[in-house]
């Protein structure tokens, strides 16, 4: 198990290296750099060139890449051009908000999707099934930025129940209740969106399991239906929940980018959009690498969990 984990981490390195080379190459091959954006029109060509060589923008690509990579391995992603602060620090400040948003949303999604998926599979084509299928259909088709605006309109503007954005009331300092109130709307929006996708998934994998022979055997032995569903069928449907967790990381990241924008949430997604608009490439690349690492880590975690929930899966 340990050996497998180590090997998986090692095999992930080429993928990460590929991502880093690709993003560096694309970024660097673009016309224009942030100096074009920053420089005053009055600056002479010479002083521009001098400024470029000071920050190493005139070096050949390969050298700039190696220099960047060396620093990255040491945990240094360079400095943000716009803010002048280390990229690692900028991103680090945004991690907790984004992770708390993603984590809680995932919990909400699963808390809705797993029971609902089981219920609708057990009572397939019942009333609840039809309602939940229609809602899930709607949920997949409503973009989070629209449901986010709707939520703000209803809960923040009309009824004034919850704050419409930001992570905490400005100037108030850390306060758990305040923080949770600010989390409520974005988590709801992102969580419900996920729930719509996962419920359909959970339902179909549970249906699959229910059709198996051993479930019929269990019924035939006279085991109470509830026990058959929860003890026999659900445990096997869990395998697909794990697949779902692996899928969740990328889709949560996509969702977080938009949701953070709607709710002015100070997370990694907004940092990405802001840096992209400001052509702040060190930050963009730092975030891209972070996303790649997260995705690889998510896949690895899912693979390891497989062996926990499914004893047939053995890694050696």
């Amino acid at each position, binding site marked *: 198990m340990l050996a497998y984990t180590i090997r998986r981490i090692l095999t992930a390195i080429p*993928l990460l290296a*590929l*991502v880093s080379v690709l*993003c560096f190459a*694309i*970024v660097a091959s*673009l016309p224009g750099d942030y100096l074009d954006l920053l420089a005053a029109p009055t600056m002479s060509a010479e002083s521009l060139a001098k400024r470029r060589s000071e920050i190493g923008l005139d070096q050949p690509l390969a050298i700039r890449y190696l220099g960047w990579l060396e620093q990255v391995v040491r945990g240094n992603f360079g400095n943000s051009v716009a803010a002048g602060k280390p990229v690692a620090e900028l991103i680090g400040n945004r991690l907790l908000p984004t992770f708390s948003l993603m984590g809680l949303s995932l919990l909400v999604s699963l808390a809705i999707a797993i029971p609902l998926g089981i219920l609708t599979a057990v009572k397939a084509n019942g009333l609840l099934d039809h309602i939940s299928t229609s809602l899930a*259909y*709607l949920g*997949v*088709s*409503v*973009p*989070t*930025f*629209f449901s986010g*605006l*709707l939520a*703000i*309109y209803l809960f923040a*503007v*009309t009824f004034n129940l919850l704050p*419409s954005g930001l992570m905490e009331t400005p100037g108030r300092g850390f306060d758990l209740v305040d923080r949770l109130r600010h989390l409520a709307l974005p988590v709801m929006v992102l969580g419900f969106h996920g729930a719509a996708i996962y419920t359909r998934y959970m339902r179909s994998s549970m249906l699959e399991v229910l059709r198996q022979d051993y479930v019929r055997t269990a019924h035939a032995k006279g085991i109470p239906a509830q026990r058959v569903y929860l003890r026999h069928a659900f445990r096997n449907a869990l395998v697909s929940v794990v697949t779902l967790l692996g899928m969740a*990381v*990328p*889709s949560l*990241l*996509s*969702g977080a*980018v*938009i949701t953070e*924008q*709607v709710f002015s949430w100070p997370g990694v*997604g907004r940092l*990405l*959009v802001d840096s*992209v*608009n400001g*052509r702040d490439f060190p930050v*963009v690349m730092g*975030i*891209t690498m972070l*996303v*790649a690492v997260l*995705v*690889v880590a998510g*896949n690895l975690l899912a693979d390891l969990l497989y062996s926990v929930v499914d004893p047939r899966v053995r890694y050696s």
Partner: protein
Amino acid sequence: MVLLGTIAVTAIVAPLLARFDPNLPNLAHMSRPPGGEHLLGTDQIGRDVYSRLLYAVRVSLLVAITAVCLNTAIGMLLGSVAGFFRGWIDQVLSRIADAFLSFPVLPLVIVLVALFGPSLVNVIAALAVVGWPEVFRLVRGETLAARERDFVQAAISLGGGNARVIFRHVLPNILAPIIVSATFGVAQAILTEAGLSFLGLGLRPPNASLGNMLLDAQSITVLRSHPWLWLSPGILIVTIVLSVNYLGDWLRARFDPRLRGR
């Protein structure tokens, strides 16, 4: 279906139906509520919301459909090559597709569009780049199965050229699932495009797109007192995506005999 047809036709003949220039501000008619001369009201600088919506849908559909055509073409070509020849070429292409598939869609599109600048063509290109692996995987799997079927084996043994066998015998027989997945792809592309312009990275203002009309509505004042500005584009996106998804389901039911009669 009917709804979708209506929306599509309206979008195509948008210039005929729009009674106002969608990008022309009219300061005398700022923030008018719906009704009267302006069917769906006007925005803060007096542009007619109804005309802007017509043009926005036009752009959304154009972007989504072109992008999906492109990525389906790429995916079909690479997928059939990988599935037909197998071996190392399949290995290489599959690894690349896997790498793309594991990456979250939106950050990838954002980075791509940011790099090459936000323009109509670049948005389409970025959507095609992130969309092809899905098609690739489907086509590869179907081709692997189709290649073992008797009529394909017969075509090969009769000395049909590889390209001829792929295009004449393999692809026509696996078209149905590809069309279904392309339909769902269009729905996905509409959502991604709208999200992109919502982040200010899609079509540049003053041109209207469904996403940037919502972006304009992000202030509390607009949310509270001018709901027609954000409700109409939002509802329109949901309607379009829902109908495209229904179309996809309907096609799947038609093409897949196993699902028939349900």
